[in-house]
């Protein structure tokens, strides 16, 4: 097989105001083509109003093994959650 065209990651915005969300990836010769392929591949049923394509090589990602330093859930700090604090009866919606 000859050299693959570059890989692009595809992000869709479901409707205006929402974040773009990663939906998948595809190969294309350039960004313009990637946008067209993304439209063909991912938007057939009003899935979105905006597409971002980013070359996969331009995405810098944390490693699974870095989980402790990047994604420590801080389970030892329950006081960071609102539910940690008991409210007196009669106080709702805080």
């Amino acid at each position: 097989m000859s050299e693959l065209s570059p890989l692009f990651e595809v992000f869709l915005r479901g409707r205006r105001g929402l974040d773009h969300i990663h939906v998948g990836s595809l190969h294309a010769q350039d960004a313009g083509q990637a946008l067209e392929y993304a439209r063909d591949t991912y938007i057939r049923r009003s899935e979105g109003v905006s597409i971002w394509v980013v070359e996969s090589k331009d995405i810098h990602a944390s490693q699974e093994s870095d989980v402790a330093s990047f994604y420590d859930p801080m389970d030892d700090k329950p006081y960071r959650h609102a539910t940690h604090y008991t409210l007196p009866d009669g106080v709702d919606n805080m």
Partner: protein
Amino acid sequence: MAEANDLEQVFENKIDAEEKIEPKDWMPEGYRKNLIRQMSQHAHSEVIGMQPEGNWLTRAPTLERKSVLLAKIQDEAGHGLYLYSATETLGITREEIVQALHDGRAKYASIFNYPSLTWADIGAIGWLVDGAAIVNQVALQRTSYGPYARAMVRICKEESFHQRQGYESIAVLARGSAQQKAMAQDALNRWWWPSLMMFGPHDADSAHSAQSMLWKIKRKSNDELRQSFVDQTVSQAEIIDLEIPDPDLKWNEQRQHFDFGEIDWDEFKQVINGNGLCNRERLAQHKKAHANGAWVRDAVAAYVKGKTGESGE
């Protein structure tokens, strides 16, 4: 010229249809300026707001309270960063935004110019100041500018912890010794009126309100938001047996809202214009911290320069 009108029409149509404006959309210069003013002011408030709380960090009464306060202050820094990043999508740099604060061209919430005199103030700040901020921010989740709205959603998720820890903290004092209870009442007395001022001038006197409402940057008026805050806070005070320092406060059966006394607008103007108790201290502290961090920014720049140098670019 016809083209500009079309762009404006497209923009207006989006606003009318309750659609968000995104960074790459055309927008009127006034809309952009108004957003930069409001969002950077909001960001500065988060950052300057760390100072009155930081004042008690080393004197928190227990390790638990200290951990909570530290976590809250860390959140405020994070909220400032969400908001600075969202503001930067409007084509202004962080340096410009910070410079405007240092030059006095950009403001921050006037409440942070009041001193935190006792430990009870930390509870009062969480309960009242964060409580008022939440009322404002919940409405702003529906603001017309996409990045601002999304930042508000993230912030609101975290704010509930802030208000609850404050309320719980002041509630503990309110049911403590006579001295502790007096301290809690004193904190409420001092923070109540500045909290009401957080919502800004009356609608009729607010310089930017009318246009901001038309553009749906603001979704509820200053007076509407202030009323919501008063309505929800009165019973919270009653439940912990503290008295809101306003002789005119009473339920209005007809309006189905609480009536309340007039804010001291002269004090409000004085504080906004730089003459509050802590204005100079707050700004001086921010400038000092910024200057003290210069070597970090320089080091980062030098590191990046060194790295690109190595790769021969």
